[in-house]
């Protein structure tokens, strides 16, 4: 009896491995050995560098990606936006928070997690972790609009097209698709620009150099140098999602 139970447990282990992560375990093992050579895109945000009331990065992103400006907050689409420090880092909140941080708008976007819960729950792999560079991708052709990913994301990074977004786009950028009603969307680290050797639009648009983008696997990259010499935090790191957006305080 005990023997059977033991064999059962042995059999259950790989099953748990499969259902608890989005990547193929074989692929994940390969990825681990190749970890030193492959790219892992990440971003660091120097929150003190943001100018008061500046929305250059947000505007650049919205314009390039045809992000609609929907007035009803319930139907909003957001790729990168700002939220008060206290709400972005609720666990860092204290009665004697530094004055410079109180009510400070902090940029939030998709964290392109190492272990993205959104990709784990997606029933069709319409969202998945790209093995080559770690971007959490969206396939708007395949998304069925079940919104399981929105429930699973601990960062509120995902938006659903409750209505047709087109009427809410002032000037459509013909080089980038809009989305259709009924699919989920989010930041993809400007995957289309990276393919052309460009940096993400928000990073490029920032005149204060508050956003630093680069390869976290490359010890000589700007982002690694910045993180090596400054204190930084991640959002809800305790959940083990491995967020790749860092905040330099």
């Amino acid at each position, binding site marked *: 009896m005990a023997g059977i139970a033991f064999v059962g447990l042995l059999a259950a282990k790989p099953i748990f491995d499969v259902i608890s992560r989005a990547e193929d375990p074989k692929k994940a093992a390969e990825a681990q050995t190749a970890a030193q050579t492959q790219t892992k895109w990440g971003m660091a945000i120097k929150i003190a560098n943001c100018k008061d009331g500046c929305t250059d990065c947000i505007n650049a992103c919205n314009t390039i990606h045809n992000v609609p400006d929907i007035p009803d907050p319930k139907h909003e689409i957001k790729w990168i936006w700002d939220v008060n420090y206290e709400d972005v880092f609720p666990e860092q909140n204290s009665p004697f928070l530094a004055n410079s941080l109180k009510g400070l708008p902090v940029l939030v976007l998709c964290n392109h997690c190492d272990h993205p819960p959104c990709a784990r729950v997606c029933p069709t*792999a319409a969202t998945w972790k790209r093995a080559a560079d770690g971007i959490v991708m969206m396939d708007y052709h395949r998304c069925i609009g079940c919104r399981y990913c929105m*429930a699973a994301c601990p960062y509120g990074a995902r938006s*659903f097209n409750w209505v047709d977004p087109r009427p809410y786009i002032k000037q459509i950028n013909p080089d980038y698709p809009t989305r259709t009603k009924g699919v989920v969307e989010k930041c993809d680290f400007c995957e289309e620009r990276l393919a052309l050797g460009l940096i993400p639009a928000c990073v490029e648009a920032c005149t204060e150099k508050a956003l630093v983008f680069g390869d976290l696997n490359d010890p000589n990259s700007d982002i690694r140098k910045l993180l090596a010499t400054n204190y930084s935090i991640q959002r809800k790191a305790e959940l083990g999602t491995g967020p790749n957006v860092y905040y330099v305080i």
Partner: protein
Amino acid sequence: MIEKAFTGSRKYWAWILFLLIIIAIGFGYYLLQWYRGLGVTGMSRDVSWGLYIANMTFLVGVAAGAVMVVLPYYLHNYKAFGKITTFGEFLAVAAVIMCMLFVTIDLGQPTRLVNLFIHPQPHSILFWDIVVLSVYLLLNLVIGWYLLRSQYYGEQPKAWVKPLILISIPWAISIHTVTAFIYSGMASRPFWLTALMAPRFLSSAFAAGPALLIIACLIMKRFAHFDVGKEALQKLAQIVLYATIITVFFLIVEGFTVYYSQIPEDMSHLDYFFVGLNGQTTLIPWIWTCLIFWVAAIVLLINPRTRKNEKTLVLAAAMVFVSMWLDKGLGLLVPGFTPSPLGAITQYLPTVPEILISLMVWGIGALILTILYKITIGVKEERGEEESHAISFSSQ
């Protein structure tokens, strides 16, 4: 056998017509949702699941609850349930079909439903939910229909149905467990991140399913003059009573951990549910109605006099059914989403189209249930007081 559904009294046809009208109205609104998108509902970026998924979750429970009549009859040879097992199985059939429809109408891209089957992802709990629900539907349809058919032709059911019946019992547990796993596996929502989710789901299922069966039996007694017998009803009532008590106990257990440990994020969701958060108090009437119904139903069911009185019994069953819907439907979803991961409190109220579309699905479920029950009554009346299923697992 199916011809039994086409002969009925004036009341039967009036009821069918009423359901068809409800379905037609809801379908009209579904077309509106089809063309305009899910923006016609009250759901939002923060509360991204609403009435549809709430109903789905609840109805998985109703489907699973049917096992409470199947198990005692087949495994413990409890004869009093002989007359109602088919009703239990067909209740599961109607409830699972409703679940599937609720998932479908909740999709942003319903035409891509097929992607679930051509790109299945075993790491998604939704995939497993679809698997277990489909198999459960098939099991109950085959078992219920085959046994009724055997009775209709006066035949001894063949042996192949026995393993199916045995499988259907743990399978009922699995459908609700897997549905609970959809919620309890997400680190993003502390309100759902509890190992107690599956047991809570099961206990409330074992209350809601049999409660609906009590109501259905009393309706059939009144309008179709088909009596399932006092003993079966009383046993069902006891099952509802115990399952309701366990449900309340589980809620207390959950509340203790949250409020005694005082972890702020965990408390914020329960606060929103019970006392309101930052002046937002929409859900308070829901949970307090639910609590009052639970206590009232427990009192009515514990007292033998009120339990044996059909009027108070049906009242208690209705209160259990409604309160379980409040608790596991919107009461599960909305506090889970509120406050949002970024601390926002967004009100959710279902819109008129959303309610009417939901009623469409309930109408379809009621129609399927009515037709299946009509056939069952017809067969059972024709065959008289004969043992409904000449099949047993006990050694005789």
